[in-house]
């Protein structure tokens, strides 16, 4: 046994030091295993930690232990656990050297800390990117509204066929640009988790017919056929997000047309499973186009990735990324098979509810009645001069309205008290009183004709919930920029009829 004690003593000898001090800190005895100290010296002068001992002991009375104390005495430094206990008229200070152990722990803690910071950094970068994309797309929408609007107005003027052709090109480029901006906005919304999937009744057969007529135009002049097939055992009316399904199919068909010069493009929809009102469908978009290299297949769903080097093939590289993310959000799955030079097949599976109502709604033509059949008074509030001119031209071209234009909310209120209007077109971002405050002011008016006047919001802000915010504070409709003439005019007429 004595040998074990000897080994133990020698093992700990260079790890532990005992120091006896009086209450004034004078060293009465020391084994000097770690630090070379002199009896009679004041320990308080060696390191400020020791000066704390008498104060600390006042609180704890008998003994205390403090782990992981960094001490440096003379040329020796280390990290120690310290135990102090009362002994006679003074204290015994025991220093346990755990320098190696704490250095390892410190390295691990540092690595953990850096990993946390790295994660935060990535999150901040991602949020910054998404905010930037959302803001940029908003800023691009405003001038695009003007370009598209005046192009339409110009097309209605007395122009030559050649000029009409040029305007068609401008317009189709504008449409393309608008789609790209929408893509950028969509991806940022998806990545910020702000895209919500709707569950409304929609006509799947109608959607397929629309896609067929839309895309069969693109086969003209090419050695290319398009076939869209919807299996007969799939009910016509489903419940789901038609807009997003349409967006997915549009993206895949656009892609197929972009990369297929001749051969065929097929879209097939088949039923995989049906339990009660739940139905699982497989969508397949198949082309005989360029095909994709095997090594590129895994990255085609990533944002900003374009696997084809041909600069004549445009796009942001967001289309397939949006498709995958939309399908993910809708609880589905997408896969791709491709052979270079043979073609590509995208398959995805989505679940829907079958609508309990399979009756086709009878569409009755809306007859112009009431105010829409007379000339209506419209007040336009818009601060940007070029936009004022555009709206003026759109409204004037119909010959159905008298139009007054003001450039801020204060002027709207002033005009409403001077004259009766049938409707207000209200830009939301204006100097002085903006569109939101103007609406709140109008809806609180004590004059009934002012209080109840229909308001259509005009905005380039297509942030999620913007529409809900507008309707929530009392606006009747919402039109996002860049708007199409027909869309704006339809909404005006609908509100005037209701009035």
């Amino acid at each position, binding site marked *: 046994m004595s040998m074990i004690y000897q080994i133990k003593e020698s093992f700990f000898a260079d790890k532990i030091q005992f120091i006896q001090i009086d209450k004034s800190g004078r060293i009465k005895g020391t084994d000097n295993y770690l630090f070379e100290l002199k009896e009679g010296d004041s320990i308080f002068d060696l390191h400020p*930690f020791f000066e704390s001992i008498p104060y600390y002991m006042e609180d704890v009375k008998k003994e205390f232990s403090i*782990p992981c104390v960094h001490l440096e005495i003379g040329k020796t430094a280390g990290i120690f656990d310290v135990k102090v206990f009362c002994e006679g008229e003074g204290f015994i200070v025991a220093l346990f050297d755990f320098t190696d152990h*704490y250095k390892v722990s410190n390295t691990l803690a540092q690595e953990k800390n850096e990993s946390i910071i790295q994660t935060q950094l990535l999150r901040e970068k991602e949020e910054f990117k998404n905010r930037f994309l959302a803001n940029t797309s908003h800023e691009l929408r405003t001038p695009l509204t003007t370009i598209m609007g005046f192009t339409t107005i110009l097309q209605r003027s007395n122009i030559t066929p050649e000029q009409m052709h040029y305007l068609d090109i401008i317009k189709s480029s504008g449409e393309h640009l608008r789609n790209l901006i929408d893509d950028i906005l969509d991806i940022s919304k998806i990545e910020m988790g702000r895209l919500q999937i709707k569950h409304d009744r929609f006509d799947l057969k109608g959607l397929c017919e629309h896609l067929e007529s839309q895309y069969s135009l693109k086969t003209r002049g090419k050695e290319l056929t398009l076939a869209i097939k919807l299996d007969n055992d799939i009910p016509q009316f489903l419940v789901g997000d038609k807009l997003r399904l349409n967006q997915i199919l549009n993206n895949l068909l656009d892609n197929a047309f972009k990369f297929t010069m001749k051969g065929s493009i097929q879209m097939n929809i088949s039923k995989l499973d049906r339990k009660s009102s739940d139905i699982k469908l497989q969508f397949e978009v198949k082309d005989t186009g360029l095909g994709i290299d095997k090594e590129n297949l895994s990255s085609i769903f990533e944002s900003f990735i374009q696997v084809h080097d041909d600069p004549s093939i445009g796009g942001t590289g967001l289309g397939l990324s949006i498709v995958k993310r939309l399908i993910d959000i809708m609880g589905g799955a997408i896969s791709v098979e491709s052979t270079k030079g043979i073609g590509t097949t995208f398959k995805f599976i989505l679940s829907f509810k079958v609508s309990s109502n399979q009756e086709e709604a009878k569409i009755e033509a809306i007859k112009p009645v009431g105010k829409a059949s007379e000339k209506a008074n419209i007040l336009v509030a818009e601060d940007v001069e070029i936009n004022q001119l555009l709206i003026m031209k759109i409204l004037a071209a119909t010959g159905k309205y008298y139009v007054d234009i003001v450039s801020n909310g204060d002027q709207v209120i002033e005009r409403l008290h001077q004259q009766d209007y049938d409707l207000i077109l209200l830009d939301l971002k204006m100097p002085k009183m903006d569109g939101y405050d103007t609406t709140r002011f109008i809806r609180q008016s004590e004059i009934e004709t002012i209080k109840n006047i229909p308001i259509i919001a005009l905005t380039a802000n297509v942030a999620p919930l913007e529409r809900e915010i507008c309707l929530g504070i009392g606006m009747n409709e919402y039109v996002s920029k860049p708007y199409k003439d027909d869309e704006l005019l339809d909404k005006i007429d609908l509100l005037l009829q209701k009035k």
Partner: protein
Amino acid sequence: MRRFVENAFSEEYKVTLGVQIQKKVIDLKGRKSLSMIIWDIEGNTTIKNTRSSYLLGSSGFIYVFDATRIDTFNELNEEMAFLVNTYPQAKIKMIANKVDLVNISALKDLLATKQIECDYFTSAKTGEMVNEMFEALGKEIA
């Protein structure tokens, strides 16, 4: 953004376990000088997780938070309440550090909306207000 990237791995993010102890003598102008033994304690997600042996017997606390980390602000009042209740004799100062990286008036507005009473706005990097803060705490303790 740039600020965050540039500072993410600066010295200020170095982890030091345990406690490092220093001494600072403060001249209290006209009165005797005060010797402060300062225990610089390892950072923690909450003061409640800090070893009580590091806090016991303290005459005062300087609670330092990172002014750039807005996500931690909601916990500050609870942290202060813990110190006040657990160590009622101690003088406490709450300090916003790294103010060289933020707009101080915006920071003050934000803290006011959360009813957080911060005593000093310091920058360890530039040394701004650090001495003033120690002197003020010293006067209260003396």
